[in-house]
Structures are given as structure tokens and as C-alpha cells.
């Protein structure tokens, strides 16, 4: 111990500015959710671009392969899933980029609240404004690919569940690359291999629905994947953000 004072054991001692924490984590979480929602809604193009991209990619396939409805129907589940996955990927780079550039991320690291929880709030907003709209839009594109009837609900549901995992896993990559000036392509390289299990079970669920098999198992596994990513990803995101900001 430097200095002459005896070490203080009671850290709550009379500090002039000290106050007991009040609203705590919930206040901070709610404010972060609200702020990110407002931010994204003010820059509507960032919400719309992935959706337009999704529609565009789906348009390319009939042109590139064949307009034959039967052929399209067989590959539709995979196509829809891959295109949605790429669209979700497209929006990832901006997840932390803005906060990194203007210094808010630094401030986020310095709140007494756990960074993992605040990061999770940001990911939740990302999913709400990319994953969920993609899931809702997919059935419309499914019609254009002559997706067999009876699988539309499962398509939307599996995408909604799956994109939540995708947002979480992708956020790890986004956090790792946010400090790099050209992190976009690298981000895809890091994140896409990790997306494969979600793709397998997501597209599998739609296929099972078309074949008339039970989809419960697929959806259960998608849910399990989400649970596992929910458990691990926030910590990885927090650790990655600290690395990106301070090295």
C-alpha cells in the first residue's frame, strides 16, 4: 500500500457524491433498447436494406436457374433460408460500428452495469429490426418461389427463431471486427461457418413441413441452439468489445 492511510475496508464510506444504485440494470437496459430502436428507426434505410436485399437475391434465382415452379419449389426452403441468412449478415457490420466511431461504445464499457447484458439489448434490437422483418417477409417470397402450401407458417417461425441465433453469433463477429477499418468481408468469413448448424435445422424444418414430417424436433433443436447461444454469446460479445476498444 502506498501512502500512509490505513486501507479502508468499508468502501461504502462517506463519499460526497456516492448514492445507492437506484433503477439498476433494468433502467439501463430499457434506455439502451429505446435508444437503439429510435436510432434505427430514424435511419430507416438500414432497416429496409436487408429486406430489399433479401427480395433481390430471391429474384435472382428463378432468373439464374429456371422459372419452372416445380424445380423452384424443391429448392425454395434452402434458397429462402440462405438468402435470409445473407441478408441478416449484411446488416451486422453496422451493429456496433456507429457506437464505436462516436465513442458511445467506450461509455458502454464504463457503466457499472454488466456489458454482456447491454450488448444483449443491442442484439435484441438488431433482431427485432432485421431478423423478425425477414421472417415476416419470407412467406411472401415463398409464394414467388412456389413454396408448397402448409410450410409458410413454419418458414416464418423457423426464420424468427433462427435469426435470433444468427444475430447473437453474428454480434460476436461484429464485436471482434468493429475496430478494423475494413472488417466487412472478414466478418462474413468469421461468422458464416458458425451459421451452418442454424441453416441446417432451419431449412430442415421447412423441408420437413413440406414432406409432412413432424417439425417439432427441428424447431426444438433451433430453440436449443438459441438457448446455447444465449448462454455463451453475450460473454463472448462483451469480451470481444473490450478487445476491439482497448486491445
Amino acid at each position, binding site marked *: 500500500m502506498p501512502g500512509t492511510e490505513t486501507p479502508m475496508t468499508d468502501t461504502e464510506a462517506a463519499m460526497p457524491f456516492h448514492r445507492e444504485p437506484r433503477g439498476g440494470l433494468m433502467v439501463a437496459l430499457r434506455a439502451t433498447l429505446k435508444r437503439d430502436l429510435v436510432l434505427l428507426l430514424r435511419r430507416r434505410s438500414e432497416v429496409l436494406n436487408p429486406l430489399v436485399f433479401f427480395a433481390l437475391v430471391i429474384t435472382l434465382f428463378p432468373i439464374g436457374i429456371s422459372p419452372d415452379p416445380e424445380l423452384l419449389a424443391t429448392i425454395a426452403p434452402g434458397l429462402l433460408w440462405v438468402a435470409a441468412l445473407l441478408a441478416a449478415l449484411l446488416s451486422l457490420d453496422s451493429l456496433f460500428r456507429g457506437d464505436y466511431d462516436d465513442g458511445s461504445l467506450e461509455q458502454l464499457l464504463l457503466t457499472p452495469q454488466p456489458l454482456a447484458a447491454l450488448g444483449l439489448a443491442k442484439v435484441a434490437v438488431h433482431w427485432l429490426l432485421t431478423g423478425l422483418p425477414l421472417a415476416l417477409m419470407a412467406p411472401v417470397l415463398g409464394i414467388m418461389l412456389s413454396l408448397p402450401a402448409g410450410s409458410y407458417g413454419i418458414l416464418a417461425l423457423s426464420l424468427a427463431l433462427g435469426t435470433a441465433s444468427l444475430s447473437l453469433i453474428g454480434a*460476436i463477429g461484429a464485436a*471482434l*471486427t468493429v*475496430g*478494423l477499418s475494413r*472488417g466487412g468481408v*472478414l466478418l462474413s*468469413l*468469421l461468422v*458464416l*461457418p*458458425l451459421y*451452418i*448448424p442454424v441453416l*441446417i*435445422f432451419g431449412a*430442415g424444418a421447412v423441408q420437413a413441413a413440406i414432406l409432412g414430417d413432424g417439425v417439432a424436433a427441428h424447431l426444438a433443436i433451433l430453440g436449443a*441452439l438459441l438457448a*446455447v447461444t444465449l448462454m*455463451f454469446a453475450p460473454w*463472448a460479445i462483451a*469480451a*470481444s468489445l473490450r*478487445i*476491439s476498444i482497448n*486491445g
Partner: protein
Amino acid sequence: MWTFIHKLGSPRWFYAISARLQPWFWAAAALLLLVGSVWGLAFAPADYQQGNSFRIIYVHVPAAFLAQSIFVAMAVAGLIFMVWKIKVADMAAAMMAPLGAAMTFIALFSGAVWGMPTWGTWWMWDARLTSMLILLFLYFGVIALRGAFSSRDSASRAASVLAMVGVINIPIIKYSVDWWYTLHQPATFTVTSRPSMPMEMWLPLLIMLLGFYSFFIALTLMRTRSEILRRESTKRWVRDLAAEEA
């Protein structure tokens, strides 16, 4: 315990101890690979189904095993680096990544070549080959991420985190790919899952496996020593050492 860990973590100590270990592993690797190759290529009996093309197994399987083990080793080294801040662990992890990618490539290449006499095509979306391909991309990701940072400290930490994230995902990827494969290709013949192998086929495989692992350890020791010279080049002991080895 703590002092031991940190002693082990000191580059200088590691440099000295690895100098003594290295020759043994090189010798073991050379011997095992030589014996395993001759035995596997010339003495092991031909497979009753695949004939002599099965001899590819002696490079394919060890490479595939090593490819996965190296990723795990890399993640463990990353964990050690992140928790105990032991730099040697990160140097080793940095040196393991390219070797792991090379092993994955060997496994993929030999698997594809093996596919020609077995399936009649160079590439099949076989579960194991697909998993290997994904593993190769994971290696590329780690290597690329490490290379993308201008600060080496940041690069080390980022690569460690990614390796750990990857290692959690590898079993998930493996199981989902297996599941996907059985769904789409029910009960076709997979090259590498062999129910029972006679001893004369199995023993050379074991020897090759040990040889590959010895090679990995020897090479990692050697390249980590080089990396120590590179990163610690401003340190006094490294300079003295360089003068000595002139």
C-alpha cells in the same frame, strides 16, 4: 503452482526447455512416420472391398484427427493466454493455426482423391468431408482475424476469443452436419467409418497417428521458438543468444 505456471510461461524458460524436448519429438516423428508409411503402404493387407485405394487412410485419418486436435489445442492455448496472460501460449497458438489449416487441407485433398475410386467422383458432400471443409473455413477465419489487427496484442486476444468460440461450435457443427447427411443420403457407404479393421491394418494407422502428433508437437515447439525470437527480439537474452548461435 503460480510460480510454476509463470515460469513455464516465461519465454526464456520455454526457449531453453523446448530446445531439449524438440530433438526427441523430431526423432519420434521421423521414426514413426517412416515405419508407419512402409508398413501402411507395403505390408498392410489390401481391403477386401476397396482394394489398395484404402491405403489413403494412413494419411487421411491422421490428418483429419490432427486438424481437429490442433483447433482444440489452439483454443486451449488461447484460454491460457487470456486467463493467465501467458504470452508463450499465444505464440504457440499463432504457430498452430497454419499447420492446422494445412492438416485440414491434407484431409480434404486425400478425402477427395479417395472419393474417385470409391464413389466415382472427386467430391461428395459426405458428412466428414463437409465438416472438414467447414473446419478449414474456421481456420481461415482465425488466421485472417489475427492478420487484420495492426496491434499484435489486440490480434492475440481477438484470435483467442474466436478460437474459443469456434471450439464450442465444432461439435455442434459436426453433429448437425452428420444429421443433415443422414437425412439427405440415407445409408450410403462412407469411406472413413469402418466397422472393424483387422489388426494389421489398424496398427500402422495408429503408428501414423502418433507420428503426425509427434510432428505437430515438434513443429510447434520449433516455430514457437522462432516466434519468441521474433517477438522478444529487443530483449537482452535474445540478443546474447543470437550472438552465441552465430
